[in-house]
């Protein structure tokens, strides 16, 4: 028993210091007004939260992040599912496709965001060049905030598609072959077999993928920072996203309490999504049981 505590002590101490304490601290900090340097740290109650409700930047960030997350997740799921169904058949090319589609998942975000920024470039980007070949006008992909949001969605789908595909593939492979064979013998078409047998069995994985990728999408930051901020055909104002707004308030305006209140809202969104997932998953289990 002594061994347990001695062995766990370093990792548990670390765990408390870098995770439990900051999570608790962020709730606490959200009720204070503090600029990081000043020794004065007045308690302001719900003021930070009330301020957020009237803060246009925050509301815009919340709206943009929500649109971004739901669009990215919806698109990535709708593309990944048929992709996985097709790749689950035995094919010599299956491994090749899996490798290629998975590639963006493991590449670091900053360099690929830089590459995408160049692809989206208004004057010399290959995307606008491609549009010009089919007679379409150039699109200000990153300079118009409304369009830039969708440029980020496209890149987000590209980055996460392979991950969803792989999870769906495992789910499909776990479906007992007898179920599908039995359905074939009964004369079910491919289409019927998918919707009546595979799809219901894939529901838990589908749910898991949708919720976890929505949570990840809500934390979008790096590509926003690289692609829409600063120079090289960047807009005057970046696409406001939640984490970007937290970063700006916390580390450019040093409004630590205010930024913490935003962070708390992000935490609550994530917790809400998790609760939804758990309750839906439990419903599934109850039905199955």
């Amino acid at each position, binding site marked *: 028993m002594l061994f347990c505590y001695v062995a766990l002590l370093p*990792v548990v101490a670390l765990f408390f210091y870098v995770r439990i304490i900051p999570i608790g601290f962020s709730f606490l900090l959200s009720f204070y007004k503090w600029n*990081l340097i000043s020794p004065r740290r007045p308690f302001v109650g719900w003021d930070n939260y009330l301020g957020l409700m009237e803060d246009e930047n925050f509301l815009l960030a919340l709206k943009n992040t929500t649109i971004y997350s739901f669009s990215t997740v919806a698109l990535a799921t709708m593309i990944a599912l048929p992709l996985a169904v097709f790749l689950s058949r035995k094919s010599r090319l299956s491994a090749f496709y899996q490798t290629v589609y998975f590639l963006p998942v493991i590449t*670091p975000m900053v360099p690929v965001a830089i590459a995408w920024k160049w692809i989206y470039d208004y004057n010399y980007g290959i995307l606008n060049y491609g549009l010009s070949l089919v007679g379409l006008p150039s699109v200000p992909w990153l300079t118009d905030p409304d369009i830039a949001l969708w440029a980020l969605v496209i890149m987000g789908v590209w980055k996460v598609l392979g991950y969803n595909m792989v999870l769906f593939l495992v789910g499909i492979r776990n479906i007992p072959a007898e179920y599908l064979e039995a359905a074939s013998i009964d004369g079910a078409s491919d289409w019927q077999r998918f919707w009546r047998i595979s799809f219901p069995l894939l529901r838990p994985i589908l749910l898991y993928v949708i919720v976890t990728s929505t949570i990840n999408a809500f934390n979008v930051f790096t590509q926003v920072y690289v692609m829409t901020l600063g120079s090289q055909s960047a807009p005057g104002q970046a696409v406001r996203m939640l984490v970007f707004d937290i970063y700006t308030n916390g580390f450019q305006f040093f409004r630590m309490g205010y930024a913490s209140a935003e962070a708390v809202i992000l935490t609550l969104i994530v917790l809400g999504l998790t609760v939804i997932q758990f309750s839906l998953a439990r419903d599934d289990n109850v039905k199955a049981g």
Partner: protein
Amino acid sequence: MGHRRSLGRRLGLYACHGVLMLGALVMVMPMLWMLVTAFKSAAEIAILPPVFLPKDWSVANFSGAFETAPFGRFFLNSAFIALVSTASVMATSLVAGTVFAKYQFPGRKLLFGLVLATAIVPFEAYMIPLYVQLVGLEWVNTYQGIILPYLFMAFGIFLMRQHVSSSIPTELMEAGRVDGAGEWWILARVIAPLSGNALAAVGIFAFIQGWGIFIWPLLIANDQLLFNMELGLTQFQFAFSADIGKLMAGSVVSVVPMLIVFLLLRRRIIENMALTGLKG
């Protein structure tokens, strides 16, 4: 009739492959475009219509990037951060995972529950208080400050616990104890050697994560000497925005280690991602 149907099917299959090939092209295009642009001269980069392959493959952008910014230093910083994080995550996951899997002690459920429950909270949601804590420690602008949050991984602990509880028989550990071995000896000589695959999976995750960290170094490292590749690239981008060739060269340097890791361990990475994703 049957023949026609199979012909239709075959055409459908070809159509599917056509779409998939097109998709595959889209997936690799950003990386390919980055690569070829890195080898182009300035004149070839900003022209219409764009040329795909450079006429003369030149490494001038690479040497130029390394001269304009200390990319060598950034690269070593990235490698150092990723390796220290990987080693620590593997060690802490092995120890904590084993203890949670095989030992009974008061507080076990509570602690493991905490690890699981907080794994879902995104780093971005508590980075501000963490930063404040490190200001107090005076660890801003230090390597230990950058690495600290990446020394353990909830996910790794979870993965190792799953592995140890499901595939290592408790009798093996008992046999060791009968022979008079201590718990640390059992951990190092019985459990660790039987956990190669799971440990490798944890290590790969940690390395990929550690190599790509960005928002935390952005907050905690203001001294250029501490920048990792990711942070160095973004700051370089703001300073030399017109220099697309050098920017792409730097990006290639940052992507290549991950590409090598991926191509070498492709199958294992994909399988582990899938399995752990589903269990997590």
